[in-house]
């Protein structure tokens, strides 16, 4: 069909439609979240073969392809592996809320862990938000059993 100049082109909107989910966190993740909720402490899981400590804990060490079941304590302090200061806001698709910019976004290797945890940092100071900087987790007063029980990390 020839393109009609100025022709009205319609759209169909999804409106308020959404897909609800109820994901199981599983034993490994639940143990991690409960440790935060009840004791404000972190745990990881250690691979019996390569010795890597994974945070958050999961069942399988991908590299060794073995099941892990040794939970080990991990510090609530650690160092920044990589970081950014976000100046451009966006709306979180699950909450519909926009986080005020700028904010720090960091990957923290907690002492005792071999993997990093991505989270927010309460500073957006480019002089201080640096790779290798030491940070500590700040927990929400009332924990609900979610990764957001960590309110954010803070520079030590």
């Amino acid at each position, binding site marked *: *069909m020839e*393109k*009609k100049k100025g*022709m*009205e*082109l*319609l*759209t*169909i*909107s*999804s409106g308020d*439609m*959404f*897909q*609800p*989910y*109820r*994901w*199981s*966190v*599983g*034993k490994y*993740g*639940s*143990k991690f*979240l*409960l440790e935060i909720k009840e004791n404000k402490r972190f745990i990881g899981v250690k691979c019996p073969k390569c010795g890597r400590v994974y945070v958050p804990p999961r069942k399988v060490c991908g590299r060794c392809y073995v099941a892990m079941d040794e939970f080990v304590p991990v510090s609530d302090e650690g160092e920044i592996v990589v970081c950014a200061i976000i100046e451009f806001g966006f709306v979180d*698709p*699950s909450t*519909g809320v926009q986080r005020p910019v700028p904010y720090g976004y960091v990957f923290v290797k907690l002492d005792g862990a071999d993997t990093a945890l991505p989270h927010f940092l309460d500073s957006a100071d480019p002089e201080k938000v640096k790779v290798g900087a030491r940070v500590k987790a700040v927990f929400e007063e009332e924990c*609900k*059993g*979610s990764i957001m029980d960590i309110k954010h990390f803070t520079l030590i």
Partner: protein
Amino acid sequence: MSKMESENIYYEGRIKVPYKWYVGETGSRFFIALRDKKEIWGIRCPRCRKVYVPPVKNCWECFIPTKEWVRLKDTGTLESFTVVHYPNEVIPKKPPVVYGLIKIDGADGSLLHFVGDIDISELKTGMRVRAVFADERAGNILDIKHFAPIP
């Protein structure tokens, strides 16, 4: 939101990405005719002569563009139907809801839509139906309210 159930946590969340699907020129022309004139238009393949409703930009059997718009009647025959008894947040009606495949006179296939204004016990395939247009029309498939039996 997460809830505690014994040792296992369940995390309740959702995927809510707002979508705005473009209907395209071909589909827009179809919906505009429904909305503005309460007319049902199909489109004919120049090769196999099949008439498609809703219209398609390309005949998928011949794999060539369709061109010829065909004004169709608002009457047709009920080819299949079901009475849905469960509630479902995506159905814009309360159960029982009747879906039908309606072969509009002059078309080569059927249109999926609601059947209404009917005693469910009287539903049968082969019955003649007519499109009932919605009072408020917005340029979408619900501009046809449903198909109702022709007495």
